[in-house]
C-alpha cells in the first residue's frame, strides 16, 4: 500500500508518496539527497546516517512511512560553512569520502549532547561507523578540533550549525 508523508528535509517541507516497505534511505536518495549512502544495509556501518530531530538513525533500517512530519537532516543539507565539515576538511579527515557524511552527522549529534567529549567518548559514539579507508585518526582529530573551536567561539550547546 502507498501513503503520503510530509517530512521536512533540510528545512524544506516535502510531500512524498511512499510504499509501506520503502526504506528512508532509498526515498531520500530518490529526492537527490545522495550524501545518504548504503554500505552494510544492516545498521552496522553508518554510511546511511541521517538525523531525525537531531538524533542519528540508520536510514537503511527505517521505513519511510514512519517519518511523516519528521525533521530530517542529511549531511548535504548542512550549511556551506558548517563547523564540523570545516574541521574535517582542515584535518584532511577523508580519503574516498564515502563514509564521511555519516561521520559528520554522528559528530553533530555527539557535540550537541556532549560539547567537550574525551577521545574515549568520541570513539564510543562512533563505534558503529566504519571507514574502509581507515581515516580514523584524522576523524578523531577533526572532532576534537571542532569541539575546541565551539568552546572558544561560544556556540550555544545544542545548536547544529
Amino acid at each position, binding site marked *: 500500500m502507498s501513503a503520503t508523508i510530509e517530512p521536512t528535509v533540510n528545512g524544506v517541507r516535502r510531500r512524498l508518496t511512499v510504499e509501506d516497505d520503502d526504506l528512508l534511505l532509498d526515498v531520500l536518495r530518490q529526492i537527490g539527497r545522495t550524501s545518504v549512502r548504503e554500505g552494510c544495509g544492516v545498521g552496522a556501518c*553508518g554510511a546511511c546516517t541521517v538525523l531525525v530531530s537531531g538524533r542519528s538513525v540508520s536510514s537503511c533500517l527505517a521505513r519511510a512511512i514512519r517519518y511523516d512530519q519528521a525533521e530530517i537532516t542529511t549531511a548535504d543539507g548542512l550549511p556551506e560553512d558548517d563547523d564540523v565539515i570545516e574541521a574535517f576538511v582542515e584535518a584532511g579527515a577523508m580519503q574516498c569520502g564515502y563514509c564521511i557524511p555519516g561521520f559528520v552527522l554522528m559528530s553533530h549529534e555527539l557535540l550537541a549532547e556532549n560539547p567537550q567529549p574525551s577521545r*574515549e567518548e568520541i570513539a564510543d559514539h562512533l*563505534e558503529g561507523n566504519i571507514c574502509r579507508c581507515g581515516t580514523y585518526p584524522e576523524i578523531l582529530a577533526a572532532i576534537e578540533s571542532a569541539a575546541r573551536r565551539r568552546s572558544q567561539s561560544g556556540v550555544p550547546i545544542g545548536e547544529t550549525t
Partner: protein
Amino acid sequence: MAVFHRPGTLGEACALMAERGDAMVYGGGTAVQILEKQGVLFASDLVDISGIPGLANIEETSSGVRIGPMTTLRAVETSPLVRRVTPLAARVYGHVANPRVRNTASVGGNLAHGDYRLDPPTALLVLDATVELTSSGGTRTVPLREFFVDFQRTAVRPGEIITAVEIPRQDEAAGSWFAKLSSLSANDWPCASAAALVTGGRRFGRVARRIRLGLGAVAPTPVFTQVEVAADAGADEAVDAARQAAEPLIDPIPDVRGGVAFKRHLALVAVEEAVRLSWEERSDARGFFRDRRRRR
C-alpha cells in the same frame, strides 16, 4: 509482503494481533528489517505500535521503574531516573550495538527478539525484572527469569504485546558491573557477556553476600544464577564461587565468534571481570562508587 498496520490504540493493536494469522509486532524495526532483507520474515501482518500514545514512558514506581515497550534503548541508557534507580540497567542498555541502533530499537522489541546474545537480559535477570504482556484476552506478568524459554523462544504467546518492563530498585549499597567480550570488532555482538550484582553483607555483622549473575551469548538462552559467599570473603573467593556457579550453565553454540572451548573460557573470563569489579564497587568496600565510565 506482510501487510503493514499502524493502529492508534492498544485495543486496535491487540485486535489486529488476534485476528491476523501470523501477525508480528513492529517495534523499532531494527531486527524485523534485517529479517526482511534476509528473506526470512514469515509474518502475514506487521503491527506497528509506534503510533500508540503512552508506550514510550519511563516512570518511577514505589518499587523501581516501569518502562514502556516503545522506549528506545538510548532513552533508557541516558535517563537520569534509570541511572539513579537502577544504574546497572542504564549501563547495560548503553552497550547494545551503536548509538543509531539504540536511538531506534525499543525495549519491548529487544526482549521479544529473544536472541541468546542480547545484552539487556543479562542485567534484567540479575535485577529480577518483570515483563507485562497484553492481548485481547487481558494482561499477565512474567518474571524475566521465566521469559527466555528456549533457543530464540520467549514466553510471548501469539497475539501478545509487551506493554511494560518493570525493574525493581537496585540496592544502593550493591556493587554491579557488566562485562562484554567481543571476539570480532569492538561493537559486534558479544562472544560472551556477564552482568553481576553483589548485595547484602555488613562487614562486621557477618551477613552473607549474594552474587547474582546474568550471562549472555554463552548458552542457547540468556541464563541466570546466584551464589552466596561469606561477608568477610575476599574478591578471589567471590570470583571462585561465581565461576563455579556459572560453569554448569555454560553451553556455548560454536560460530564465527569462537568454538565451544574458546567461548567456555571467555564466559568464565566475563564472569570473573563482572564479579571482581562489582565486588570492588560495593559502596562499603571503599566508601565511594567507582567511576562509571564505559569500559571495553
